[in-house]
Each structure stands twice: as C-alpha cells, then as structure tokens.
C-alpha cells in the first residue's frame, strides 16, 4: 500500500476526505489489452458464448478505432496520452465462500463501507435503500434482493444477471449503446468487468430507491462498469449511483456505460452523485471519467430522467442522453457540474426526438472555480417524423474568481417545422456584493459561497431524492472549499 512519501501527496490526502486505500487481496490480470485478456475476463466470469462473441466484436472494433483515430478529439478537455497497454483490465477480490449474512463480509471491506457512509445493515431497510455494492470490479454483497424478488424485480450484479437471466441481457445489452458507439463505450464493451442490472416487470412500482456505490480501489485498475436497467410497461424505478474513490497519484481511467430502457408508460429516474478524486491543487492525479450513459424511451408515454451532480474527477466527459422513440415520451436532464483547481468537465446531454409529441427538458448548471474549465455540450435533434416535438434548454454558468472558464456549445438539429425548441443561457459571477451582504448578516465567506451556490443549483437538487440532495450539497461545499480567498 502506498505510504505518503512527499508533502504534496500528504496535503492532497488530507484534503480529500475519502482518500483511503483498503488492503484486500486482489486477483489481478496482467497489464494490457488483447484478445487473450478479453477471453480471460469472459472465462473468469464463466460467461455464455454470446457474451464472449460480443466482447470480441467490440475489441476488434476498438483496435480499429485506436489505430485509425484514437480517442475522440472534439471535447474541450486536455490530458496527456493514455497508454491503454499499461492498464490492468481485470481485478477482483479473491473469491470467498458464499456468504450467509453480512457478518461474513470481510471486516476490512465493511469498515471501508462505513467510512464511505454506506452501512450495509438493517439501517438501510429503514431508509428504504437497497444497495448493490460494487467493490472494485466484482459485486461482493447484495441486500434486499429477496424483498424485491417478491415483486418480481431483479436487482443484481451484471455478472449474476448474465448467469441467471441471459435472455434479458442478450435482448437489451447494447440496444441503447451499441458496442460500436464511441471509443470509450467500445472499450467498455470489450472489457467490462461488472456493474448492476435491474429489471422491473410490467406494472410494478419499485418500492425503494435502488442504489449502487462504485469505488475504484486496486491500484492502476481501470474501471469498466456496465449497468443495464429495464422498466417494462407501466413500471417505475428510481436508481441512485454515488461514487467516491481513494486518493491516487496516477490518473485512473474510468469508462462506464449505462443503458436504460423504458417501455410503454414506464418511468426511469437515474441520479448520480460523482465525487471521484479530482487531483490535487496543482492538477496532479485524479480520475479520468469517460462515461457513456443513454436511455431509450422505447414505449409510448415513457419517461427517463437523468439527474447528475458532478463534483469530482480530473476530467469528466459525459453526456447522459435520451432517445425519445415512443410517441409522447419525455426525456429530462438535470445537471450540476463543478470544477475547481485544475479540473475539467465537458458534459451535457443528447436529446434525440424520434416519436411524435416528444418532450425534453435540459437544465444544466456549471460552476467553475480556481482554474476549473467547465463546458456544457448539448445536442437536441428533432427527426423529420417527430411532429410536435418540444425542447426547453437552460444552461447557467457560475464563475468564482477570474482564472476559471465556462463554455457552452449547444447543437440544434431540427428537421421538422412543427418543433418548438427554446434555449436559454446565462453566465454570472458570484458578486462581491452578494458575499458582503451575507457576511453583513453574520455568515462567513465560505458559508456565503455555499449558500449562493446551493441557490444556483436548487432546480437540480430538487430532482434528487432527499437523502441524496443533502449529500450532494455537502459535496459541493467540500469541492469549493478555499475557492474564495
């Protein structure tokens, strides 16, 4: 385990509250990416043939992409080249015997969860949260499965779903984000190790918030999560994803894929609070977060809502979108993205209107402090056949200090004349006058900034489940600590 060896690391470790490393034996694959590695992953996971084939197709496509053009270059982010052959693509805590109860979970692992504030115990039942905890790349504990099973809800790790519900996985995997979608999604398709799977049957309203905590732990292990959520006709599910990562000196690549599918009259809400290690004050270290998240409103009157609070990572590259295929379907995107010090975020959404009378709403709040660079990039596409489509976009940027930047790139592609598309954007600076006003009432500058920022983000926080909203607000204040001198 690393011992803090230089003062810089020391400092960063003190400031990043969730920076700790757990000592658990890992089962680690050799570095690099090849057909052998993909086969190894598939074998380790005891996957059926169709999975291996899918992975290999993705791998070949990725190798082509890597040779031809490499990573996408259009994003407003800058980083040194990533050596994909220097990454470990598979790492799992060594298999243990089947666990009968939580008492059998590795005490050290449980202590880690405690530090993260994720008590894997009865308290969760009281708060109504079932947790499928992903620790590194393999799910180690799943709770409340039985309760959900009574309703016919499947909530398990992705690997488990591949074993127990291969027909569902086969039907929906890649149906929203195909293996050839983009460089990082393709990489994920080839090497993804695990993730979560949820299936809500027809007419069932999931009675609790489903949640998964991701955590990057083993050194140098890129994380390639894959999540698939399917809501059948008339079903409802709200899913929470919260992340913290231990402090690292090197950059860690993270390329997840999330696919959501909503059939007729179904609703899927997906909320994220992302707080991975952002790097230190000089911009050293931190997570590279290249994520592909997309939902498909397949059925009529279906609805998908993305809510995200992005405070961490050195680089965030993320555009949770909705394909509005069913008539009268609704897509929503609510986002708060914060960059401080040398963080970079290029994030936004894609709303693809295909069905008639489809509606989308985009509310994006970008906060930049320090040398942070924050970019909103959003696509609203109204297809020819999408009569009566409507979109409302609002992109607000808040600047703290004068060395940071905010950028807005809206892309509008309208092919139907009945469409109504509105875009509003604003950029403001936290005013000296606002801060002075708060201080004159007895609040410290730090509290004043937190107050102003939370007001700025209110429309987005309102979309989060209560418990999450509180956490998100705390994260924001931690992220912006020291941004006002």
């Amino acid at each position, binding site marked *: 385990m690393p011992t803090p060896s230089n003062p810089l690391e020391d400092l960063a470790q003190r400031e990043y509250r969730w920076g700790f490393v757990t000592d658990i034996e890992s089962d680690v694959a050799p570095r690099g990416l090849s057909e052998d590695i993909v086969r190894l992953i598939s074998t380790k996971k005891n996957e059926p043939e169709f999975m291996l084939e899918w992975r290999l197709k993705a791998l070949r496509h990725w190798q082509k992409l890597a040779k031809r053009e490499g990573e996408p270059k259009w994003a407003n982010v800058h980083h040194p080249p990533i050596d994909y052959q220097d990454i470990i693509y598979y790492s799992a805590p060594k298999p243990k015997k089947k666990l009968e109860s939580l008492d059998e979970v590795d005490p050290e692992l449980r202590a880690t969860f405690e530090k993260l504030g994720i008590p894997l115990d009865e308290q969760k039942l009281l708060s109504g949260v079932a947790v499928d905890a992903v620790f590194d790349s393999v799910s180690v504990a799943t709770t409340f499965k039985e309760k959900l099973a009574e309703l016919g809800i499947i909530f398990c790790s992705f690997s488990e779903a591949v074993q127990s519900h291969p027909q569902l996985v086969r039907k929906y995997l890649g149906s929203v984000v195909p293996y050839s979608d983009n460089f990082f999604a393709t990489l994920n398709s080839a090497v993804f190790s695990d993730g979560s799977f949820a299936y809500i049957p027809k007419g069932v309203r999931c009675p609790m918030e489903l949640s998964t905590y991701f955590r990057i732990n083993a050194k140098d292990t890129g994380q390639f999560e894959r999540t698939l959520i399917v809501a059948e006709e008339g079903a409802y599910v709200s899913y929470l994803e919260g992340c913290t990562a231990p402090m690292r000196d090197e950059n860690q690549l993270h390329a997840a894929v999330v696919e959501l599918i909503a059939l007729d009259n179904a609703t899927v809400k997906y909320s994220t609070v992302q707080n991975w290690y952002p790097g230190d004050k000089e911009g050293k270290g931190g997570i590279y977060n290249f994520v592909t998240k997309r939902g498909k409103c397949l059925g009529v009157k279906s609805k998908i809502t993305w809510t995200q609070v992005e405070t961490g990572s050195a680089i965030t590259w993320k555009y949770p979108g909705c394909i509005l295929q069913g008539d009268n379907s609704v897509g929503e995107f609510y986002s708060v993205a914060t960059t401080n010090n040398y963080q970079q975020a290029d994030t936004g959404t894609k709303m693809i209107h295909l069905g008639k009378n489809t509606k989308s709403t985009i509310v994006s709040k970008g906060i930049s402090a320090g040398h942070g660079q924050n970019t909103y990039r959003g696509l609203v596409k109204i297809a020819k056949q999408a009569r009566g489509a409507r979109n409302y976009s609002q992109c607000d940027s808040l600047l703290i200090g004068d060395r940071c930047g905010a950028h807005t790139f809206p892309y509008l592609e309208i092919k139907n004349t009945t469409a109504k598309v509105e875009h509003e954007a604003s950029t403001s600076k936290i005013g000296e006058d606002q801060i*002075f006003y708060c201080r*004159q009432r007895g609040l410290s500058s730090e509290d004043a900034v937190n107050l*102003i920022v939370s007001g700025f983000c209110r429309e987005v926080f309102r979309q989060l489940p209560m418990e999450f909203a509180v956490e998100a607000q705390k994260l924001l204040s931690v992220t912006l600590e020291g941004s006002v001198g």
Partner: protein
Amino acid sequence: MLTITNLHVRGGNREILRGINLSIDAGEVHAIMGPNGSGKSTLARVLAGHPEYEVTQGTVLYDGRDLLAMDPESRAREGVFMAFQYPVEIPGVNNAYFLKAALNALRKHRGLEELDAMEFMSLVRARMQMLDMDETLLTRPVNEGFSGGEKKRNEIFQMAVLEPRLAILDETDSGLDIDALKIVAAGVTAMRTPQRAILVVTHYQRLLNYIVPDFVHVLTDGRIVRSGGKELALELEEKGYGWLEADQVAGAPAGKA
C-alpha cells in the same frame, strides 16, 4: 457605544471621508444628512466593513473595541447591522432559510442554542406583522423579484429579527412611497430601546418626520460640517444644503452646534 475619531477613507482612488468625528451612545438615534456624493453611504458601509474601502487614518471604537480590525461577519455577530441602500438578490435561496442561517450564526457566536424551524417561524411571524409584510415573501428567494419597497421592508424585517445593538440604515427611505415609508419608520421606531443605537443615513428630511432623531449631522465633502438636534433637519429642508456649503466657505467652524 460607537466612537469615530478622525476617520479618513479612500475608495475608487480618491479620498471620500476626510476626518469624521462622531460619538453615538446606546439609546440614541443619530441622523446623517448630506447632499449626493458627500460620503454618507461610504460612512455606513465602512462601519459595516465593506471591502472596497481603505481606511487611511483614524479609529472607530465599538464598545471600546477596534471595530475596523474586525471582519464584516464578526461585526454582524457583535450586533452591528446595516440595512442596505440596494439590497442584494440571492437567486434560489429562500428568504426564510437565509434569515434563519443568519440568526443562528449570531446566536451561535453568543453561545445561544440555535433556533429550530418552529421557534424561528413563530419569531418571524410576529415581526412580519409589525412590518405588514406579505408572508409569501418568506418563501421567495432573497430579494429576487421584490419591488423596491419590498426590498427595503425586507431589510427592516431582517433587522427586527436579528435585533442588533447598532443599526445603520443606509437611505432606507429611497424608493419608498409614503405609506411604505410610514410602515418602515414605525418598525424602526418600535425598535428604539435604551440598549440600542440607530444611525440613519438619508438625503431627505422626510424620513425624520417619522423616525425622530436625537441628533442630526450634516456631511458635506467628507466632513461633518454641522451637528444639531432634530430641528437642524427642518432648517436644512427649508434652506437646502447650499446654505451650509456657503457657510463653510465663509469659514464657519464645523462641529457640535
């Protein structure tokens, strides 16, 4: 309570206050009057600790302590309140939430228990009645979309909740119609106690019909050129500021009348 001695202040590259001397005791109401640009608002803002000004000379003692050495929030916590001439909007932040945070910051500093939502609301309701304020203003974002009169009323409402020892009203009358002015003035008058000092900065005598001051000071070009009782305000109303400026040019000494 407050002793200002030979206060010189610079702002925006020029000297705005050029040697202010003023003493205010608990229980007193002082009015500072003067023409536009005379430095009235600067004096109010310097006392509150606005960062845009630089004090180049002089001292300000508040209960014997060096007020100028305290940061703005410490002054507030020690009981200095300023009603802003232009109250600031804070979008998305609920007015009640803001005021509760402020009140609890003051209470915490004084070693008092923080008020919970219920206790806070009962305190707030009583104060709102006093100022004839619409209760919906509580749930709206701080000053956002408030009319000019609502903003000013909100300032005095905050003052009534925070109960300062030294209240500074910076042109609270500007932008108020006569009905609103009477309500605001009645609110301020109701807060006159033997423990509290009030400093009213105003351009017009009108406000002083309703908040009757114990002392009136006339500020011209960064100096107090005349001090007197409430009748000085009336005299000014009649003769205009030009009267004193002419006086000053003629060499009349500035000071207590």
